[in-house]
């Protein structure tokens, strides 16, 4: 599998091995066979610096708790920049900015313990911590789980912007619904194997592909198809609720006298 400057979404039925795959990307696990090249270099060859790799690749874990270990939120978000050897001023600028990006304020939350946050707050802080490192590649494992819809939107906006700036983004999720607006390519894993790898349009609305791997078309798609069956809509190509609502609003203009 090769991934270049693009947004990729891995989706899966639970336990099909995607979290394991991610850990391979960042050199957290060593494959029992096969080779991983990052920028054409074998990451398990002698002399390759894994710490440099981890500087290049930012990983947001599935459970934010696994990556929050400092005493305060500010120290946690600042940990990455500190490890990069940045000076204190730059560290605090980055910390503040990263927290702001995820909808939180350093002044309010910076001195609190990351373990005394709500689950959604923890996830935001974990994402901020990785953003503060300004990595070349960003890998996120279930980044939208436990976020409220406003939080999901925020995260999608951030990722979109980063992608436009040239960052490669890899998102692992079961929630195709949320992420499909963002990515171009979807890889579906099934029992530790790649089952599908291609443009997002195919699996998003193709029930045959999805049901084979025990996934389901998003509710949005099912509703679109339902409206099609009722002959209210003629096409079904909305990727978000907003798209669909727009589509319906246009209908109104057509039928209005």
């Amino acid at each position: 599998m090769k991934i270049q400057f693009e947004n990729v979404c891995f989706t899966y039925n639970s336990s099909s091995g995607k979290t394991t795959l991610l850990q391979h990307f960042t050199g957290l696990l060593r494959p029992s066979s096969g080779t991983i090249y990052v920028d054409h270099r074998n990451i398990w060859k002698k002399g390759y610096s894994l710490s440099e790799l981890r500087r290049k690749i930012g990983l947001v874990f599935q459970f934010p708790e696994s990556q929050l270990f400092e005493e305060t939120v500010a120290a946690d978000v600042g940990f990455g920049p500190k490890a990069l050897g940045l000076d204190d001023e730059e560290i605090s600028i980055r910390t503040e900015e990263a927290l702001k990006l995820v909808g939180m304020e350093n002044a309010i939350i910076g001195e609190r313990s990351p373990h005394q946050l709500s689950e959604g707050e923890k996830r935001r802080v974990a994402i901020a911590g990785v953003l503060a490192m300004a990595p070349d590649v960003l890998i996120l494992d279930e980044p939208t789980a436990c976020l409220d819809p406003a939080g999901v939107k925020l995260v999608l906006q951030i990722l979109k912007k980063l992608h436009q700036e040239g960052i490669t983004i890899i998102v692992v999720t079961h929630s195709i619904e949320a992420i499909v607006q963002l990515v171009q390519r979807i890889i579906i894993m099934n029992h530790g194997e790649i089952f599908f790898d291609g443009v997002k349009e195919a699996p998003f609305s193709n029930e045959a592909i999805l049901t084979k791997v025990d996934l389901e078309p998003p509710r949005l798609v099912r509703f679109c198809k339902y409206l099609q069956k009722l002959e209210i809509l003629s096409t079904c190509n909305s990727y978000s609720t907003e798209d669909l609502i727009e589509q319906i609003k246009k209908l109104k203009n057509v039928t209005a006298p």
Partner: protein
Amino acid sequence: MIDIQNISYSYESHGAEKIPALHQVNLQIREGEYVAIMGHNSSGKTTLARCLNALLIPQAGEIVIDGLATCDEQNILSIRKKVGMVFQNPDNQIVSTTVEREIAFGLENLGVPMETIHQVVTSILDRFDLTRYRNYPPHLLSGGEKQRVAVASVLAMNPKYLVLDEPTSMLDPKGRRELLTLLAEIKSDNAAKATIDQITMILITQIPEEALQADRLIIMEKGTIIFDDHPKIVFQNVEKMKRIGLEVPIEYEAMPLLVELGYSTKLFEQFH
């Protein structure tokens, strides 16, 4: 019955702002109800759940469960037996070295005889499709599987009130549906056996579709309850829900527009 009387809760270390996590919450939940709770991040959902099984004691107001006040230390054990709690992060809940032992753990604590434990564990493993993981260390399971183990081990204790804090957040859509169907089945099984108390379910979720399964939906905002009604009624408040950062199922958002076009709401009753 769960009787929540005007409770407020503030965490000690809640930062400069000192906004209470819960503010004058009133709520009565009757036996056998299926209640969903939704709300934006940090609206107080988990705090409320923690109050229900006496992990937290409100600083003001009182929670009384089947006549037992949570603030009375003598009641805590009986309350924990009645109120089973599935935590939002399974890693905070799972303590044992194998799946089987995790499910047996709570029963052992309750002093259930070994033989019964064995029976219950076997049937729960089967019901949750976890038999093949019987001897697996839980930390090697995927996030979704851990969540299934967490729910299974709480249900093994046969709680009268089951509080589930976003139990499906790591499950794929099919896994999510299966778990919720299973819970609904367990609930109706229980109802059929007249000898057993009806199980009461309280499901915290960010997913509007899940809330549709409940008989009652509570919306929290900034530590207070702002809606408490049937999900079908609550979801009609599309604009208000959006304003507080929440979503309604897609059909509820589309419906008013389609009705304006002259379509009947009846058309949408068949959509699930």
